[in-house]
């Protein structure tokens, strides 16, 4: 009898927990479901919501007649004799020459949707070529295996290769000469392929299909860049006389067709009627019980997530735990390893998985998951993307992943075709988590997030126009996407990089423009982690910004739950030397961020405030760290650090509130400050909508220094471009400031919550009780006078 699940009866300490061998999928999960249901019926239940998604039968369709006989036989030899209805629908759309976007859940056979037309083309024309784009190198490797499995069955001489930063230079030449199918990523296309297109002449001449998988990954600035890279791709393809067809695949987002159309600038047909079978699926909301009602303290969600994961593992159910940070991932890995130990076979039954593990180790974990050698994995969102790990019985979400789309995506990892599966969302005490738990309809009935891109962001557009000119001279009457290029080219001539001659603009600079443009925020600047416990061995890599918070001296670095003490950080050589330790605590870095105005480009009064846009400096610095004891989370010490300051120059839009304008408000200093933070949150949400960018592309910060009398001194709200150098979002925000404040007001007024919620100013736990009122007062002051001005 397992009492573990019942929060009223904490796990018996010291009991050696058994680990059942992995069982084939069956209905034994129903025992767990019944326990959840029993809990659900209690008053003040920790399980406020259980949703059951009914099982669904497969809908099969015969192979379309037009499919080449050899391909049909090859697929039959792999056990594929009929298609799911959505696969057949995709085939029909693509065969009729339409661009298609396919939206079906994980493990519904979506890769066959695009592999089928490509293989069919290759069956009849061995010179045909296709380009596959994935957001990560790992996915390309994964899909190459899948493609080759089918290609080999076809028996013909199909040559498919990955082509990315890991491709050895001696292999590149052969790939350029011979490949039919190239699996790459947008970054490589941007800086490694298009600027050298003459070497790819054969490939571009025969390019029939461009496949963009994981379309939902291309939001915000990354998507805006990709859209421009695709403009360049189409331009080069046209030079070689080809006009490729686009096939996109996406996880569930609100607007897949719109996203595909804005990225590719073509008309798309949507295929979203999933014909794959699905077993019964349960979605359980779990809120850790309150242990101190006065202080509103709940049990640690990390411990609760661990207990739930243990219950699944003890029943022999393969389980995936998602955590929202690297640190929590490692801590959970450690806890679960401690409690379940190793099975008789010797392989670790539980493993961690996150970015920063070496690729070889990640491939091994993926394979062990597929083969059932590993019972449980604790992962960050690194496993959210479509890497093939098979389907699991249970997913435990340690904390709300932050967006509806991402939650469904992670939950999709649980789902057997015939047996039941469970996803449990364990809420943390963060305001957003508590809000979702209390408002299940927000998640279950709400639309997933929209993915927005703005390919016409002027700075991004102009950067890619430079690359385009480098690739081929731009003709006077040529358009780039929907744009006339004349004005922009004339501008680029002024800056000296283009030159007009013979009716076209030519690249006249020694520079290689693609090198100056990174499609994503991540830099390639990595720290390697070297274990010097015995000899010296590279165990991982950490991206630059994260290294500052996780690899400072005296930090405890976790890797697969193992603790390492950072002995020294060689900043110049980008190396951290770590040693295995056992010490009972982990560390958490303390970081300070500040925004400083550098130069205003323009300003104007907006009601009682002053609106401006210009350049700012964002300074952040790791100033110290806390030592936190495992299990109890007690703070057992801290340390000061003098880490180098990280500076980012970027552009910002800001509102300055004169002290006098706040003095008249009937609120305390703290309430006013909370109101400003709340207003900042709303302005960011609305700003992202107006700019059609991802909210994460905009940073928000409020300054609120106080004088001796504790009154606020001219506080400011900054919305800044969250990219070094800025990407031109601030000037449009300044221009649209009227709409910005009006929409912010509508958003708050239209929100039915009482005292603020994550949908508007933020949850009361985060911004205080009065934030909604204060924000509305501030907005009223901004909008009324603004309207008067416009009227006058």
């Amino acid at each position, binding site marked *: 009898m397992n009492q573990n699940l019942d929060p009223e009866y904490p796990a018996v300490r010291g009991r050696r927990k058994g680990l059942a061998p992995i069982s084939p999928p069956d209905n034994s999960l129903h025992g767990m479901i019944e326990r959840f249901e029993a809990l659900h019926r209690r008053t003040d239940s920790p399980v406020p919501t259980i949703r059951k998604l009914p099982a669904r039968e497969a809908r099969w369709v015969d192979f379309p007649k037009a499919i080449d006989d050899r391909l049909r036989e090859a697929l039959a030899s792999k056990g594929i004799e009929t298609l799911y209805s959505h696969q057949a629908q995709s085939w029909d759309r693509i065969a009729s020459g339409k661009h298609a976007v396919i939206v079906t859940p994980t493990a519904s056979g979506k890769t066959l949707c695009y592999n089928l037309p490509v293989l069919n083309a290759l069956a009849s024309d061995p010179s045909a070529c296709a380009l596959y784009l994935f957001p990560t190198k790992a996915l390309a490797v994964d899909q190459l295996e899948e493609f080759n499995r089918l290609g080999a069955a076809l028996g013909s001489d199909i040559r498919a290769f990955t082509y990315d930063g890991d491709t050895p230079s001696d292999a590149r030449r052969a790939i350029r000469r011979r490949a039919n199918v190239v699996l790459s990523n947008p970054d490589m296309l941007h800086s490694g392929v298009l*600027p*050298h*297109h*003459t*070497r790819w*002449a054969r490939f571009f001449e025969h390019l029939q299909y461009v496949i963009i998988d994981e379309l939902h990954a291309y939001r915000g600035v990354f998507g805006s860049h990709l859209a421009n890279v695709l403009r360049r791709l189409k331009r080069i393809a046209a030079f070689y006389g080809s006009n490729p067809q686009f096939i996109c695949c996406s996880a569930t987002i609100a607007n897949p067709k719109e996203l595909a159309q804005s990225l590719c600038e073509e008309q798309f047909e949507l295929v979203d009627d999933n014909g794959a079978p699905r077993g019964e699926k349960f979605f359980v909301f779990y809120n850790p019980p309150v242990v101190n009602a006065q202080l509103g303290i709940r049990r640690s969600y990390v411990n609760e997530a661990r207990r739930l994961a243990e219950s699944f593992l003890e029943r022999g159910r393969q389980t995936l735990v998602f955590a929202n940070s690297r640190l929590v991932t490692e801590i959970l890995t450690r806890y679960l390893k401690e409690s379940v130990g190793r099975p008789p076979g010797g392989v670790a039954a539980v493993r961690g998985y996150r970015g920063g593990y070496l690729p070889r180790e990640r491939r091994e974990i993926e394979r062990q998951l597929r083969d059932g050698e590993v019972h449980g994995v604790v992962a960050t969102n690194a496993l959210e993307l479509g890497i093939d790990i098979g389907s699991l019985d249970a997913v435990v979400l340690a904390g709300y992943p932050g967006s509806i789309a991402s939650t469904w995506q992670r939950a999709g990892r649980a789902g057997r075709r015939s047996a039941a599966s469970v996803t449990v969302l364990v809420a943390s005490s963060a305001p957003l988590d508590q809000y979702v738990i209390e408002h299940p309809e927000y998640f279950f009935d709400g639309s997933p997030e929209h993915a927005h891109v703005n390919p*016409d962001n*002027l*700075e991004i*557009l*102009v950067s890619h126009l430079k690359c385009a*000119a*480098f*690739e*081929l*001279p731009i003709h006077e009457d040529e358009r780039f996407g*929907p*744009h*006339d290029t004349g*004005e*922009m080219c004339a*501008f680029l*001539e*002024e*800056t*000296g990089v283009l*030159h*007009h*001659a*013979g*009716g*076209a603009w*030519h*690249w*006249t*600079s*020694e*520079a*290689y*423009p693609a090198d100056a443009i990174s499609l994503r925020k991540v830099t390639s600047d990595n720290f390697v982690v070297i274990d010097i416990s015995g000899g010296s061995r590279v165990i991982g890599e950490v991206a630059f910004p994260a290294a500052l918070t996780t690899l400072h001296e005296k930090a405890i670095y976790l890797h697969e739950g193992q603790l390492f003490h950072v002995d020294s950080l060689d900043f110049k050589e980008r190396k951290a030397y770590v040693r295995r330790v056992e010490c009972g605590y982990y560390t958490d870095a303390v970081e300070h961020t500040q925004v400083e105005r550098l*130069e205003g*480009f323009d300003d104007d009064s907006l009601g009682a405030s002053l609106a401006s846009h210009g*350049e700012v400096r964002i300074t952040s610095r790791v100033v110290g760290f806390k030592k936190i004891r495992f299990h109890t989370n007690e703070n057992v010490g801290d340390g000061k650090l003098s880490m180098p300051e990280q500076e980012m120059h970027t*552009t910002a839009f800001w509102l300055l509130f004169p002290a006098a304008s706040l003095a008249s408000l009937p609120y305390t200093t703290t309430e006013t400050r909370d109101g400003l933070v709340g207003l900042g949150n709303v302005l960011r949400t609305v700003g992202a909508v107006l700019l059609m960018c991802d909210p994460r592309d905009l940073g928000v910060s409020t300054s609120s220094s106080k004088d001796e009398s504790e009154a606020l001194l001219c506080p400011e709200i900054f919305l800044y471009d969250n990219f070094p150098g800025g990407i*031109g979002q601030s*000037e449009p925000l300044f221009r649209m400031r009227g709409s910005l404040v009006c929409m912010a007001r509508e958003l708050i007024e239209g929100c039915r919550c009482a005292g603020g919620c994550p949908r508007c100013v933020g949850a009361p736990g985060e911004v205080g009780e009065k934030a909604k009122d204060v924000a509305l007062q501030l907005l009223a002051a901004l909008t009324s006078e603004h309207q008067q001005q416009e009227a006058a």
Partner: protein
Amino acid sequence: MRRITQGDIDQLRRRINVAAERAIDNREPAGDAAPRERPSASSRHGEFHLEGKERQGSLGRFLMQEHMVPNDRMHGNIRVGDLQLIPGNWLTNISDSEAQPIGPRHWAFLDTETTGLAGGTGTCAFLVGVGTIETDGFRVRLFFMRDYDEESAMLDALSECLNHYDALITYNGKSYDVPLLETRYRLKRQASPMGRLLHVDLLHPARRIWSERMSNCRMGTLESEVLGFERHDDVAGALIPHRYFNFLRTGNPAGLRPVFSHNILDLVSLACLGAVLMPAFAEPGETAFRHAEDMLGLARWMRKNGDREDALHLYRKAIRAGLPPRCVFASIWESACLEGQAGNRGIQVRLLRELSRVANPYRASAFEQLAKHYEHKEKDLQTALEMTRSAQIHAPSKDLDHRERRLLRKAGGEATPGVTRHAGTESREPALSRAAVADTAS
């Protein structure tokens, strides 16, 4: 969809200007240099004069300059007229080609000046120089595009010119000039003339000969060190793209004249370098090289080509001529291997013994080779074992352990563990005698 307007561009311009003003290097504001009106190439060149003849072809116009370097001109220590005397098979030899000999009258030396080193389709060859060997001297033709709209005509004329020749000789052309020109032809949808020609890139033979002696094998370095030619007022390669861009914007060719001279000198030096490299390879026994390192380079090249006799001869010659120590040991080791392959066991063993006496990078390998020799050729297991153990002292390895065990097994009870090792004797041995080694086979 929002259109890009003049207002947007103004905004962008303002931001960039603000950023530029704050930038540390106070360059001229970008806007000033740019002419808003766009004069055509010919009108712009009206006020300035650039030497050369305008050529008109079916694809338009471009500029061509011709120069003749007379036969009696000395380029450093090479007489230009001597270029004509190089036998045709020397070129095919050096290129490892099976082709029929091609006489010097059918060679085209080629060098380009480009708009950058970044590579990719946005880099352009604005000047292509072709040098050819004729009765009256070394003839240089410079194909120059005065603006981007002359590129097609220039490339077309270059094609036409190269069609009269059978071999293309460059310096680093395999990885730079030729792929770059092929890209340009492809972008202009013109057929590239390059594929038909036998291409000999002299960078590779030059590296073989001179990499021991020179810090780099740049054309400028070899020109002064090998040809004994010094340039004066030469334009730095890094400034060349900038000079061309400046010409495009202003039409003033003053900055370009040194670029033209630079290209002409590169071509003459290239041809003269060929006149040094080709005979060395064709008649290594007769080589005029005076530097021991150069002889060593040539020896290695011969060795790689399987020309054992010439290689051994050059190794001995190089050692005698006075190699620096690091090269001496390498030379002895390499000749020992060659002697072994030639079946000269006695000489091989003497060379290996020399190497085994003093500390040097090849010592352990020498012991190991000696062990093999005593085991297999002399059937002297005791000495083989001693040599194996000495090798182990300097560079222990699994292979050596394995060899030791096998020798002990083969020897049965004959050998006892822990016999003489040769390691401790080094410092008391007399220093290696160069003459002794060099004379081993003479």
